Each structure stands twice: as structure tokens, then as C-alpha cells.
């Protein structure tokens, strides 16, 4: 029984069958990659996990509980954090405040009215956030405005915000999209480090084979809305069906 169990999920947009009969099981403490050519339905599938879309058929169970119909913030409180394709951070706030918000969300839940406490006096939260920034090597930037950082640092910050919540499952939506090779390698290193240090479960949606093969324990190949194969990286490499799917796209 995996931490994330996807059964018979289907989703249709008008005339387009974006997903059909998707079955997937993400095991705890593994890195599971979902790859596939453009338009294979990767992002649609991810959106079904986080509450942005509700599939027409099938079920998505997280930790034995259905996430269907729940709001994004409820799903997050269950333990799923998400990294976006383009980093979504609080650009008007400084780096430390960005991470502190995650810590507050973890401690106080979806809503708590605390209008008269002072942020600076919440020593536990400040320490926790600072520790997180030390872990990702950003502590020297803690007073910097988030908007003024490089793209790579924004990605790193977003990752730190997700990790500060100590999620049971971290979803990454093309974490290296649009990055230069050097940045991509940095991100891979960061993810590897996180994986070793925190022993976290990760699901990565990715286009870049290099990233996938450096990180994943298991890989699911998606094509035209259905899983083609699911196997270890070694077996996926050179799998005829996978080649066909990708070459088909290239031609």
C-alpha cells in the first residue's frame, strides 16, 4: 500500500480525454518520477492530487484518505506540499518571512486569529525558519527581499518553504524547467541532499531525462493520458514502448 494511491483516474476537458484509467502507487520514502512527452497529461494528473482539479472518475487516496473534493489548503494540511514550475513565493516579503509562513501554517493550521502576538516574539518559529535556511544554505540571505533573488535562489527558497512544513509527500512540478545546465545540476544536488537527509517521499513530474535518471527510484511513463509502463530507471532506459512514445513525439 503506497502513501499515494491513484486508482482509475480519468479526466475529460470538452472533447479531449486528458487522463484515462491512470493507476499509480507512490511508495513511502521513495522518489517516484512521472515522465512523458508534452501533452501526456502530467500536469493534469498533478493538479488532481492537490485539489486544483477533481477527476471525473476514479479515486486518489493519500495516507488512506481520499483527497477528492478537498481544497488545496486542506490537502496541504494532510501533508502534501507542492513546488511549482515557476517558483511561487511571497515576493514582497523577505526570505525569512517566506519560510516563517510555512512554519506558522504547520503549527497553527489553516486559520488562527492571532492579531496581537508579535512575529518577532515567536522565538520557536523564528528559530525553526532560520534552521531551515541554514539547511539550504540561504541563511545569509534571510533579510533579502524575495523578489530580488536569482531564479535559482527562488527555487531553493520555495523548496525550503515546502520542507519547513515537514511534508509526508513533496510534489515537484518540473523543478528544473527553463533552467541552465548548471542550475539544473545544483537543483539535482539539492534534491538528492534532501532525499538523503530527510528521507522524504517525493513525486517528480519532469521532462528532463537527466534529472529523472539521477533521482528517481521508480518511473512511470505517461503517454496520451495513460500510464505506459512503470519500472525502475534501469529498465525504463531503452524500453521499446518509451522510445516509441518519445520518438513519436519527435517525429
Amino acid at each position, binding site marked *: 500500500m503506497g502513501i499515494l494511491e491513484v486508482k482509475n483516474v480519468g479526466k475529460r476537458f470538452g472533447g479531449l480525454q486528458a487522463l484515462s484509467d491512470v493507476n499509480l502507487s507512490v511508495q513511502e520514502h521513495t522518489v517516484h518520477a512521472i515522465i512523458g512527452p508534452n501533452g501526456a497529461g502530467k500536469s493534469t494528473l498533478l493538479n488532481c492530487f492537490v485539489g486544483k482539479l477533481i477527476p471525473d472518475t476514479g479515486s486518489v487516496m493519500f495516507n488512506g484518505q481520499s483527497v477528492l473534493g478537498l481544497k488545496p*489548503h486542506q490537502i496541504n494540511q494532510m501533508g502534501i506540499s507542492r513546488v511549482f514550475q515557476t517558483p511561487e513565493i511571497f515576493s514582497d*516579503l*523577505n526570505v525569512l518571512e517566506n519560510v516563517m509562513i510555512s512554519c506558522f501554517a504547520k503549527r497553527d493550521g489553516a486559520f*488562527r486569529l492571532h492579531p496581537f*502576538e*508579535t*512575529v518577532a516574539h*515567536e522565538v520557536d518559529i523564528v528559530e525553526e525558519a532560520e534552521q531551515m535556511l541554514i539547511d539550504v544554505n540561504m541563511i545569509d540571505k534571510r533579510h533579502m527581499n524575495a523578489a530580488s533573488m536569482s531564479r535559482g535562489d527562488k527555487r531553493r527558497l520555495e523548496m525550503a518553504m515546502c520542507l519547513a512544513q515537514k511534508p509526508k509527500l513533496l510534489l515537484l512540478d518540473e523543478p528544473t524547467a527553463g533552467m541552465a545546465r548548471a542550475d539544473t545540476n545544483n537543483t539535482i544536488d539539492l534534491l538528492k541532499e534532501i532525499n538523503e537527509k530527510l528521507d522524504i517521499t517525493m513525486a517528480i513530474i519532469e521532462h528532463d531525462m537527466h534529472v529523472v535518471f539521477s533521482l528517481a527510484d521508480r518511473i512511470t511513463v505517461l503517454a496520451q493520458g495513460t500510464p505506459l509502463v512503470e519500472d525502475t530507471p534501469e529498465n525504463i532506459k531503452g524500453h521499446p514502448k518509451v522510445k516509441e512514445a518519445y520518438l513519436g513525439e519527435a517525429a
Partner: protein
Amino acid sequence: MKMLGLSKKDTTFLLIVIALTLLTPILLQPFPASSTLAQFNAGYPDLMQRFAIFGIFAIGFNILFGLTGYLSFGHAAFLGVGSYSVVWMYKLLGYNVVPGLILAIIVSALFALLIGFVSLRRSGIYFSILTLAFAQMCYNLAYSVLTPLTNGETGLQVYTNDAQVLMGENSPTSPHFFGIVMNESATWNVGGWQFVFNNGYYFTAIIAILVFYLSLRIFRSPFGLMLRAIKTNQTRLNYTGINTRPYTLAAFVISGMYAGLAGGLMASMDPLAGAERMQWTASGEVVLMVILGGAGTLMGPILGAGFIKYFENIFSKINDQVLHGWFAFLPDGLENFLIGVSHFFVGKSWHLTLGLLFMLVVIFLPGGLVEGGQRIANAFRKRKSGGDDAETEAQPSAAE
């Protein structure tokens, strides 16, 4: 020195605000009463009361607009509700302002809860239009079917046959705070100067300081942090496990209560309440104050409110005679030309100046007067330290 749970910097800041507020009757009276410059004095009780009251209104509006970015065009409704509540308490109980103000805050909170609950289901311009629609409904109803409650166009006021059950033999016959009558003042003549210390002003000023302190605490609280995060990126907040709706609703209700209190204080100074206070132009005015001063900053709304009310007073007083006095030294043709041009901006045309000012601020200085001040200060600092601004940039983004 730290006090009241504030950092050292904030404590100093609060103390300055307190000092300025309490000394306003002196500070705004810089010119001797007999001098020609006395027309620029602003130490009049009713003007100072307006400073404080609109300051409260703007501080509250800033908690919503400045922190969350939700632009309400309907806050005048709460202002009106507050005024009506206070006058009703005069009519039923007597002229003590306390029951009325309490009722004003409660009723406006209820209104804000209802309007906010519905309006906050949408964001952006839809939110603005929903709040506008609610406020216009309140305004229209106050003029028509709700006449028994609002006394329609005449406005709600106290009549001699009203119950006023708590009125004793010796109770004051105008608004008072446990016997301290609002419209009484002490006058102090020193040399050519004349200073007026008005009970009503000090009453509103002390409340203003109190609510300013509250807003300072809100700005520095985790709640305030969440509100600023809402303005920046709601998507991220949702995917961080935060339900944004109750936060925005809380901000909306708090700012509605501030507006209700401000409306109540208006009726505490002058025992009248009219529907025109609910008109959407009144909502526009508070938006203006906050933008002009600097939305999202602590000092901005107060500066904006003071600025607008001061110049409203000065500009509307300037008439032909005054203008002739100013330009008398010029040749006749030029004098008349300048007076003609000035006409557009002074006297009854004060709103024109206001509109222009508003446009200029939005175009050139979106951060308002506070940002303007900071820019000037930064320019000075740069010149001093030889262009080393790395430190200023690394400042925490917390608003001043």
C-alpha cells in the same frame, strides 16, 4: 526601552505619534492670531476632530487595503451605520457617547461580517464592485424605506420628545463622556497666539492613539504577516495550507469596525447622522487618503487623512480677496491671470486639486507620501555614505 510588547523602534515611533497627537492644538497654531498667516492655522476644534476621526477611518481601511490589497469601495456604509447607531443611543438613552460608540462598533462589525462574507467570495475588481453595490444599497435604502430608522433626507437627530431614559436633571444637553462635554474648550492666550484645547478633540485623539496602537500590533503580528502574504501570492498561501478566506474576512471586519467607530465619533462631535455619509464618494475619499499617504505603511493613512483634511480646509477658505492679497505685488494683468488660474484650484473647486493630486500620486508615487519621504531620505543618506546602499536594500521588508 520596550513597552507594551513593541520593539524599541516601534515604541519610539508610537511615542512620537502620541506626542504629536497630544500637542496638535499647539503645533497646528504656528502663527499669531492677528498675523496675515493666521489663515494657515489649523488648530480649530472641529478641524482637529476631523483629523483624528478620518485618521481612524484611514488606519482601519489600511488594514484591509494596505495589507491584503483588497480594494473596497464600500467602507462609507460602515461610517454611516456608526453615526446612526450613536444618534439612536442619544435618542433612547441620553447624550453620553459611550453606549453609542459601543453599539456603533458592534453594528458595523455585523454589517461588515455580512458584506464581507459575500463580497470576499470574489477578488480583484469584482470585490470592489460587490462592496460598491452593497454600500449603494445601504445608501439608497437609508434615503427611502428605512426612513423610520434614518429620518431620510433630514438626517437623524435628537428631538425634545425623545425618550432619553438615562438623562438626569443635570445631565449635559449635548454629547459628553461621563460629564465631560465634547464641545467645551479651554482657550489659552500667550502673546499673540491663541491655543484652543477642546474636550472633543482630546477624546477622539486618545481613541485614535489607542486604535493606532492596535493597528501597530496587527502589523507586527503573525496575522498581519498572513495578510501581507495574501496581497503577494494567494496561490502559494493556499498550497501552504492556509485558508485565506477567514483571514481576509477578519481584516474586512476589523476595518469595518474602525470605520464604524469613526462614524460614531462624527456623531459624538456633532449629534447628527445623514445618509450622505454613506455615499460612494465618501468611500472614495478614504481610498484617496490611504493611497496619498502610502498604502500598507503605518504612518501613511494618518498623513493622508491629515493632508487631505488640512488642505480641504485651507483651500476652501481661499477666496478672491485672499488671492488679491497674495498677488497684489504683481502687475495688474499678471495678477488677474494668476487669480483666474488659481480659481480652478481653490475655494469651491478644492476637489479639482484633490483629483489632480490623486492622479499625480498614483502616476508618479504609487507608495504615497511615505515613499516620497523615504526616497528623499535615501537620497540624503546616499550622498553622505557615498552611494553605499547595500545596507538599505537588505532592510527587512516590514513596512514602517
